[in-house]
């Protein structure tokens, strides 16, 4: 009995605390039926439990209070300050009795008759004093017109959105229920669902409908009807429609059954009656029913669940974690002794442990719906306040996650939904003007995906206003206008996650969204989650949050470096790449900084060996290495490790306080074999690698922008030194590999320098013709260019750096082998003409092409590109491939040639050009003139699908990437042969 009593005390104290708050709210919002019924339910629960435990004094006090509340709920009494005071007094009495109860273990003696009398008098007097109380509910709070206490059920539950969702849930269940499936057979479920929804809405006082009754004319047994009602009730419960209202709706459904199945069409009556303000008669039965329901339900729930101290669960979880670790250890030992007689029992132990772990994990799991519980209310209030129409649709409330995680995301989620309603959803007029339905929709969707939970917050509002964000970015000095120019919309949108971005001043009018989105992101990242944002102006916004199911056990990749093992949390691992000196992927070094070219992007690499100062004597990582591609925010980098083991479920343990200052570790753990290993913190590594500083994602993003910017204008250039004079540069994309060749292996054949390279002889050409080739010791840095089967090495003195720079060739070169000079990294730099050296190495480098290309009948090609660099780079190559090339630097000049009557077989045009851009040029060409039939190929360094589509629309025949030399020649030939075929 003691346990039961203490449980009762805990629960009732909780309830009383809630009641205090709720009552005050009710006083401010006397017409909030939801609140009222919640209060009623709580008091009722207190009363019920007291009776059950045999506490007559408490019971009688609670009963008197409930009595008053019941009258209020039924509209017979008004919520006045007096009523609230009385009920608060009643609660205080309950609390004081409970205090004694807690101290002494039994109900104290005392007299409550006075309080009860005044409560009863108020209940009776109220009835007498307020003959038509519900008729004037709008009087006390004149502003709160939209929610009179007699508001239709329709409005109370949140309109069509809720009903739709209820029916959706109900139908999902109905369709899975073999008993009732047959009832709807032969009809389109979608239609029936629609009818059901419309009818339910109408029944609740929503918009009228002409839809036939969903159950009209359907033969069904009582059990089937009951089953359908059961599903509907389940739907109502899922959507957390307050029990009282749910009961009313169910009452209506039952009431309608006779008329519907009986064929009568007088179904309109109940809603009409419902909608009338003083529904004394109509309302009496459902509440009574509700009470019965409530009792039945609560006792049922009470039998099935118990309250457990959270600490106990935490301890249990820790113990199970230990058990799992021990199990792993034992299994590890077992692997060494294959035929052990322990094998079978240990397997059993293994299974039992797994199940136990799962079970205990489940005790910590709570449906995400718990974190959403407050949202409908918030949305409802906000929509009233802001005079907007908003539907909140919640999908996947049953999705469960660890309570610790749940607590952590509760506030961020609430915040985001509030933001959506406040800033994203437009007013009905605005929406109408934008051609959208008046009612905005916010959808929450939660689901599992591979050990993670994905929560999406979608709205169909106005999206993030790029221009305003840009202005704000510049205003706050987060980026310059020039930098913004190079950013995609998505990158700009990311700025809403910046600290202080929109908390400043006029939140609503400025950024559209984002009171403290930085806090949201920080909170989510704190629990190892990620948040992504996609928004389209005018269409809406989607946030996608990815969080681990639980914090206690995470999936981690175990890697080895310098003989020591480390764990990297799986959530930050994007992919695993193997790099080797002779494979496709290869670690390259710029000034000792390792990088990896991965799918046309330069991935910065972090050497774990160096970062953790492991084995400093080993000078550098071998080139055969694994690269763990890791993502921190928007910053991607690779961690170089020696070996990669399995992924393992690990129990994260915090590191000892004296090691906590080491930022590259987020914790430590014990592996299956009993060894202790450190868990790497990718955030810390990124910060420690100097590229980005912790807590300042700006740098990370800038870093990414920098690499993105390559696609726009700046190109990565390899800087090196060779011979006298200025540093030299070559576009990195033209270089196949960087090698260091042992000078001893350089041989001389046919008066040329060659080296054996990948089973072939590779000719070496010195960039500096006066280079002294007599040195036989040491390493010779070589840039390898390759094309088809040919490779050649260009010997240089020193590889300096890789920089990204805009290539403006300022001075055209006279010297063969130079395209010209440009300013790179603040220094005059020679841009070398690779073509020159290629043909030095292989006289037939381009010649072999000529044979299989166009042949004697050389084709004329017009190249339009504003960049001298590309004209100079591509013309020789095209010429070498057998084309006669005319190059001009603008569309205007090209059109002038057309006017002059020049003929070309094919036109290649750049897209981004000052003045007339590629699209305009193409349009002009295709519009008129004798070039109309000439195929035009777009040449661009970046191509989004959108751009491609645009290109096709204006008449480009094909598209080729700027650095794709082989592709260019191929495309040209293809386009020409098509023309020939068509002709």
């Amino acid at each position: 009995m003691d346990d039961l009593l203490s449980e009762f005390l805990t629960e009732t104290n909780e309830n009383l605390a809630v009641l205090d708050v709720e009552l005050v709210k009710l006083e401010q919002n006397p017409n909030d039926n939801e609140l009222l019924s919640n209060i009623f339910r709580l008091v009722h629960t207190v009363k019920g439990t007291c009776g059950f435990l045999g506490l007559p004094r408490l019971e009688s006090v609670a009963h008197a209070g409930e009595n008053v509340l019941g009258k209020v709920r039924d509209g017979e009494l008004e919520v006045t300050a007096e009523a609230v005071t009385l009920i608060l007094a009643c609660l205080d009495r309950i609390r004081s009795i409970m205090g004694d109860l807690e101290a002494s273990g039994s109900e104290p003696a005392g007299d409550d008759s006075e309080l009860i009398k005044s409560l009863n008098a108020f209940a009776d007097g109220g009835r007498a004093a307020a003959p038509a109380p519900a008729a004037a509910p709008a009087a006390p709070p004149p502003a709160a017109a939209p929610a009179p206490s007699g508001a239709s059920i329709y409005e109370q539950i949140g309109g069509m959105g809720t009903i739709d969702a209820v029916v959706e849930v109900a139908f999902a269940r109905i369709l899975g229920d073999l008993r009732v499936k047959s009832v709807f057979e032969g009809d389109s479920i979608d239609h029936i669902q629609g009818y059901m929804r419309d009818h339910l809405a109408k029944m609740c006082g929503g918009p009228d409908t002409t839809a036939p009754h969903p159950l009209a004319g359907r033969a069904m047994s009582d059990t089937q009807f009951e089953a359908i009602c059961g599903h509907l009730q389940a739907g109502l419960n899922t959507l957390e429609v307050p029990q009282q209202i749910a009961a009313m709706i169910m009452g209506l459904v039952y009431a309608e059954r006779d008329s519907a199945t009986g064929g009568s069409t007088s179904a309109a009556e109940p809603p009409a009656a419902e909608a009338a303000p003083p529904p004394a008669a109509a309302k009496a039965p459902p509440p009574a029913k509700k009470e019965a329901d409530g009792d039945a339900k609560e006792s049922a729930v009470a039998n099935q669940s118990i309250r457990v101290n959270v600490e106990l669960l935490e301890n249990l979880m820790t113990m199970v974690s230990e058990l799992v670790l021990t199990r792993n250890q034992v299994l590890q030992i077992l692997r060494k002794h294959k035929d052990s007689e322990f094998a079978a029992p240990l397997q059993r132990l293994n299974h039992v442990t797994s199940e136990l772990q799962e079970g205990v994990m489940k005790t910590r799991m709570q449906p995400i719906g718990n974190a959403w519980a407050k949202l409908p209310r918030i949305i409802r209030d906000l929509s009233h306040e802001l005079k907007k129409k908003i539907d909140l649709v919640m999908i996947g409330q049953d999705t469960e996650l660890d309570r610790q995680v749940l607590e952590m995301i509760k506030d961020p989620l609430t915040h985001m939904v509030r933001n959506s309603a406040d800033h994203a959803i437009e007013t009905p007029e605005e929406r109408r003007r934008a051609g959208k339905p008046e009612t905005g929709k916010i959808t929450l969707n939660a689901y599992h995906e591979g050990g993670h939970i994905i929560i999406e917050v979608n709205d169909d509002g106005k999206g993030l206003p790029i221009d305003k964000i840009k202005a704000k970015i510049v205003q706050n000095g987060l980026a310059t206008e020039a930098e913004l120019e190079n950013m995609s919309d998505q990158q700009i949108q990311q700025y809403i996650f910046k600290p202080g971005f929109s908390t400043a001043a006029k939140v609503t009018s400025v950024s559209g969204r984002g009171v403290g989105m930085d806090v949201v992101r920080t909170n989510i990242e704190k629990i190892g989650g990620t948040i992504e944002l996609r928004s389209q102006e005018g269409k809406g916004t989607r946030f996608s949050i990815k969080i681990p199911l639980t914090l206690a056990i995470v999936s981690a990749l175990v890697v080895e470096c310098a003989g020591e093992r480390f764990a990297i949390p799986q959530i930050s691992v994007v992919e695993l790449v193997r790099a080797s000196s002779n494979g496709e992927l290869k670690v390259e070094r710029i000034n000792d900084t390792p990088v990896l070219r991965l799918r046309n992007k330069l991935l910065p690499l972090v050497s774990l060996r160096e970062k953790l100062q492991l084995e400093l004597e080993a000078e550098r990582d071998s080139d055969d290495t694994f690269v763990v591609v890791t993502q921190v925010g928007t910053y991607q980098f690779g961690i170089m490790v020696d070996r990669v083991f399995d992924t393992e479920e690990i129990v994260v343990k915090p590191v000892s306080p004296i090691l906590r200052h080491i930022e590259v570790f987020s914790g430590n753990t014990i592996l299956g074999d009993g060894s202790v290993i450190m868990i790497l913190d990718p955030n810390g590594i990124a910060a420690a690698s100097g590229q980005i500083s912790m807590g300042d994602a700006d740098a990370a993003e800038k870093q990414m922008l920098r690499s993105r910017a390559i696609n726009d204008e700046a190109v990565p250039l390899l800087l090196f030194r060779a011979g006298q004079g200025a540093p030299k540069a070559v576009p990195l994309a033209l270089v196949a590999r960087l090698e260091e060749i042992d000078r001893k292996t350089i041989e001389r054949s046919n008066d040329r320098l060659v080296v054996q390279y990948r089973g072939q002889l590779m000719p070496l050409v010195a960039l500096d013709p006066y280079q002294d080739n007599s040195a036989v010791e040491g390493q010779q840095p070589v840039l390898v260019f390759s094309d088809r089967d040919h490779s050649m090495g260009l010997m240089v003195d020193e590889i300096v750096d890789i920089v990204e720079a805009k290539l403006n060739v300022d001075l055209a070169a006279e010297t063969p082998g130079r395209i010209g000079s440009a300013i790179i990294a603040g220094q005059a730099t020679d841009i070398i003409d690779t073509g020159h050296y290629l043909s030095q190495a292989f006289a037939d480098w381009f010649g072999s092409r000529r044979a299989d290309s166009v042949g004697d009948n050389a084709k004329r090609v017009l190249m339009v590109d504003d960049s001298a660099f590309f004209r100079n780079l591509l013309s020789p190559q095209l010429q070498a491939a057998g084309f006669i090339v005319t190059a001009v630097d603008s569309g205007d000049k090209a059109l002038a040639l057309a006017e002059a009557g020049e003929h070309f077989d094919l036109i290649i045009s750049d897209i981004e050009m000052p003045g007339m851009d590629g699209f305009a040029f193409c349009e002009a060409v295709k519009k008129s003139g004798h070039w109309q039939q000439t195929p035009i190929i777009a040449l661009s360094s970046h191509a989004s699908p959108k751009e491609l589509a645009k290109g096709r629309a204006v008449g480009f025949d094909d598209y080729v990437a700027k650095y794709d030399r082989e592709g260019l020649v191929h495309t040209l030939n293809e386009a020409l042969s098509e023309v020939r075929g068509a002709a």
Partner: protein
Amino acid sequence: MSAAKNGADRSVAPTAASGEQRDYVTMTIADQLFGIPVLTVQDVLGPQNIARVPLAPKEVAGSLNLRGRIVTAIDARPRLGLPPRDNSKPPMSVVVEHEGELYSLLVDSVGEVLSLNSRDYQRNPPTLDPRLRDFSDGIYRLNGSLLVVLSVASLLDFGNRSDAA
């Protein structure tokens, strides 16, 4: 055991009647006898597999797994400013709990538990090596040797010198 402390012999006469008895786990570090109150010691372990923790202060030898709990191993020699131990003999671990965390002190060897009389106790002599003085709670005069009482709390207080790696 320097000559200057010979006078200690006299005081360890069998006069345990007066004064308080206290139990200490004794251990040697670089030939010096140390003691830790027996109640603060959780475990005494033989040689263990200690996983090195990169970037940790040099006094931190690494972490070890003690029945599923992670214990941070502190090497007493560098901590006390003593020369490193030669590798011929693996260290022993004395596991202590400090502010809810387990630490293992790596010492050269662990001896018996001694019950010592407070009459033989005295505060640190002012001439004591300053490095030792920081970590010593006092000295017991034993028969033929001196025992330095180690202060676990100050040994494990890396608080304001976490950057002293």
